[in-house]
């Protein structure tokens, strides 16, 4: 009989993030389909009552909490101790968690402590032949596998955006506090704070509606034999200002810096999408001046609607990957797009 534990951490304001509710949805699916299983919830944070209450209507049989000032911030040593304590108290066999940076950092280590196994980048959970199974990606989102495991506990980190958020209502949860003692060895690291990107920095914004992908073509010589980097910079920034889109880039464009070539100064490796970058999830994606697999197959894996502007009508990467391929000069099209957006 499986005990399915949803383990989540609270946000700075004490509530649960959407990703936690998405993981709860996955945990409930398992609970519902695995005969005889039971669902429990574990929460870590400075104070977890409000978070527990916010999902109190879900069919969890027990709520566990580890609280205290030491658990406000994401720190491996304390988080691992807290998560380990909750897993032990709940005697969990399946632990479902949102794949936040905080849990990604710590839960594989907790799995090791408990002699269990862990899977990250899980995009779906199911029951197959009475046993739990998951879908997860390999080779940086290039191939998808369905796997099952006999070892317990089994940790499943659910990729944000891959599940609907659990809509269960609020109520009053009775949280059993799990006491943990933190040895001095757990306090060698202090979280000093969070460094925000500059206000005008262009990054991958998880909440954006659109991913705007810029390829190396923006800095290459155009039909007139010249590069037009300042113009490219102006067009791209203006478009981002209008749309608040996420800015993604191909590796080749980010790498150009080392070539002594004119570069787009606002791009860094944080913008890189694809094999060695990120694979963001957005409803729409628009690629410009891109030619290659990185943005079109890997970086676009989780983009719902995709359009591309390219001068090459036979671009094998856009074909079959984009919904619409505009054969045109992106400089001209995007300048006009900006003009239309300015007019509102």
């Amino acid at each position, binding site marked *: 009989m499986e005990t399915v534990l949803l383990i989540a951490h609270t946000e700075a304001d004490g509530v649960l993030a959407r990703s936690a509710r998405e993981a709860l949805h996955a945990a409930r699916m398992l609970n519902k389909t695995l005969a005889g299983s039971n669902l429990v919830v574990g929460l870590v944070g400075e104070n977890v009552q409000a978070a527990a209450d916010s999902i109190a209507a879900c069919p969890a049989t027990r709520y566990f909490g580890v609280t205290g000032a030491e658990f406000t911030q994401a720190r491996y040593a304390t988080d691992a101790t807290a998560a380990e304590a909750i897993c032990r108290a709940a005697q969990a066999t399946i632990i479902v968690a949102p794949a936040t940076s905080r849990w990604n950092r710590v839960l594989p280590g907790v799995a090791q402590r408990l002699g269990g196994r862990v899977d990250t980048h899980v995009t779906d959970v199911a029951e197959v032949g009475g046993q739990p199974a998951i879908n997860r990606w390999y080779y940086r989102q290039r191939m998808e596998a369905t796997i099952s495991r006999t070892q317990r506990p089994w940790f499943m980190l659910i990729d944000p955006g891959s599940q609907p958020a659990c809509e269960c209502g609020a109520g009053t949860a009775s949280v059993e506090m799990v006491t943990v003692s933190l040895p001095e060895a757990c306090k060698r690291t202090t979280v000093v704070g969070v460094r925000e990107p500059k206000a005008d920095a262009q990054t991958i914004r998880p909440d954006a509606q659109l991913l705007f992908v810029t390829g190396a073509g923006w800095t290459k010589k155009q039909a007139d034999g010249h590069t037009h980097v300042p113009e490219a910079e102006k067009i791209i920034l203006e478009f981002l200002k209008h749309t608040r889109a996420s800015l993604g880039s191909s590796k*080749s464009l980010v790498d150009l810096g080392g070539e002594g070539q004119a570069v787009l100064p606002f791009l860094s490796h944080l913008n890189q999408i694809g094999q060695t970058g990120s694979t963001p999830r957005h409803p729409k994606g628009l690629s410009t001046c891109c030619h290659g697999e990185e943005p079109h197959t890997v970086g676009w894996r989780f983009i719902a609607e995709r359009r591309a502007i390219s001068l090459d009508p036979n671009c094998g990467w856009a074909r079959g990957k984009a919904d619409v391929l505009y054969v045109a000069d992106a400089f001209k099209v995007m300048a006009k797009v900006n003009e239309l957006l300015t007019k509102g």
Partner: protein
Amino acid sequence: MIEPGFQTDAPTIERPRMDADIVCVGFGPATAGFLTTLSKQLTNADGTPVVESAVMPGLPPQVLCYERADDIGFGVSGVVTKARALRESFPELDKADIPMAAPVSVEKVLYLLDPIGASRRSTLLKLADEMIQAFKWALPVEDHALKLPWTPDFLHKHGGMVLSMGQFMQWVGAQVQSTGTVQIWPGTPVKEALLENCVTSASNSVAADVSPLYLNSGKPEPTHVGCYKPRVVGVRLLDQGVTKSGAPADGFSPGMDIHAALTVVGDGPVGPVGQQLDELFGLPPDHHTRDWAVGMKFVVDLPADTPLKPGTVLHTFGYPEPEIFGFLYVHPDRVASLGIFVPSWFDSPVRTTYRYLQHWMLHPYLWRYLKGGKLRSWGAKTLGESGRRGEPHLVGDGYARIGEGSGSTNVLTGSGVDEAWATGAQLAEAVLELLKARKPFTKENLEATYVQRRRASWVESEARVAEQSRDGFQRGVVTGMVGMALAGLSGGRLAIPGKPLRPWERIPSLEDYFRGRIPPDEVRAIRDDCYARGVSAHAALMERAGWPTIPYDGQLLVSHQDALLLGGKVQAPPGYADHVVFLYPELCQKCGTKLCVEVCSGQAITPGENGVPNFDREKCVHCGACLWNCASASPENPERMAVAFRAGTGGLHSAEN
């Protein structure tokens, strides 16, 4: 004319130096043969050195090999070979150890008829085609192809192997390095040979230290004055952390000088060190390197129901143009290497290999096998087609030349890998002999050992037979084929004479080439329109002249850029200078054909401002076709043209070729 950044050395640059005993340039089949033979014999069974290193006493000789490509086995081609020399080095050779190797099982030579009527065929050939069509009921003709009922023995490869050179080289590389006596460093291009006893205008005296004098282009630096008994004393590696023009930039790291008693030059037909030595020492009397070809290939997953057996070897001629030869070799597991050669004696100013390769694949005889196939890999390379006539001075003080760049390719049998390997192995035996006798690597000593071995071998005797075999091609394809047969069957005693012209002497203007097919005004209009859009003109011109458009399928028939990315995975690391340089912009401005743009295997050369082409390093596959596909002679040397093809990084990232 030359950008300041390309001045070899500002006096202030302090170059790091390293000492080795032997340094090799390029890890191709020749160097592989050299290192395989050498590495086995450098240490005794008890691990002690057979001879001691001069630079690290107590250790075996320090042997280094620098390879331009980003990994071993990137950028070489799939072959069928008799593998005589390979078997001598690896008597226990088990094909199962080498991915994609298969014994030759079926050999066919096919004359391809023109099924669409766009091919440029001579009257004689047209007549022959008509005869074949008329008697096709009696001839082995199917799908517009005549299978030659008999082919001369010298063309056969029975008993040989179909290989992926990429996979074979990776395998050899692992074997060689596991001996622990040699090191092979990919991603590390050699810029030039280091010379001693040369004069520069800067010093105006015999340089006491080492002074590299030449640019890789073969074009002398302005400071060059002369050399007195020049001696090669090692190599200089390429500068890193420089701009496109070679000027120091962020992270500048000057190329290291590797000093060695012997420099083994195996950098192929278009390698920078080979070019530099040819320029410095000249070629022996009556020798020249005027005949070339660019080979381009696909590695393809054949359809699941393919009837082609592993080891099948098809050779074709006659289509898409009579001058273009094709090959299809079948590896195990339904994989085939296939491609064409476009030779320098195909006198077309728009001789695009990629486009012709697609038309060749679409020939009915081949397409029935290829339809439904999928591109796995793609690549291109220049072949030195002058054979023994292109042989340079094989040795000099401090250096020896092996492989294709040393004229080892047999142009009659179309065999190069086996010969290249053999020359490397011969050099290794010679080197061991000299090392054991504690004799220096002087010109005389290398002649008495290496050259003497080479002259006494089958490589030499067969090359002699082949030497004039292709001269007939100077008079046309049919004459050329007859000439080859004559030379082959008579053991080289007979041949049809013909004087090979320099490549630039052969290029007709676009207007002349298309005369009778497209009015000259229209040719110019099409060209100007294409160049204004920054693209090559061959597609538009060929289609206007009757070639059909390519029906792209996204699997096998893909755009040229997709072949680079899907097939060749072409890329270039940042921080290196452009290695293709247009040396005389004034000549480019006057040039009406832009053959370099049309032929470029990676579309890396495109029409540029004021008629001077642009070069995009990230697309270059280092085939070297630009070196000889230029319609302008170098003002300094009529045997050379106006494009420099220097040492550079990047290129193909596929080891299946």
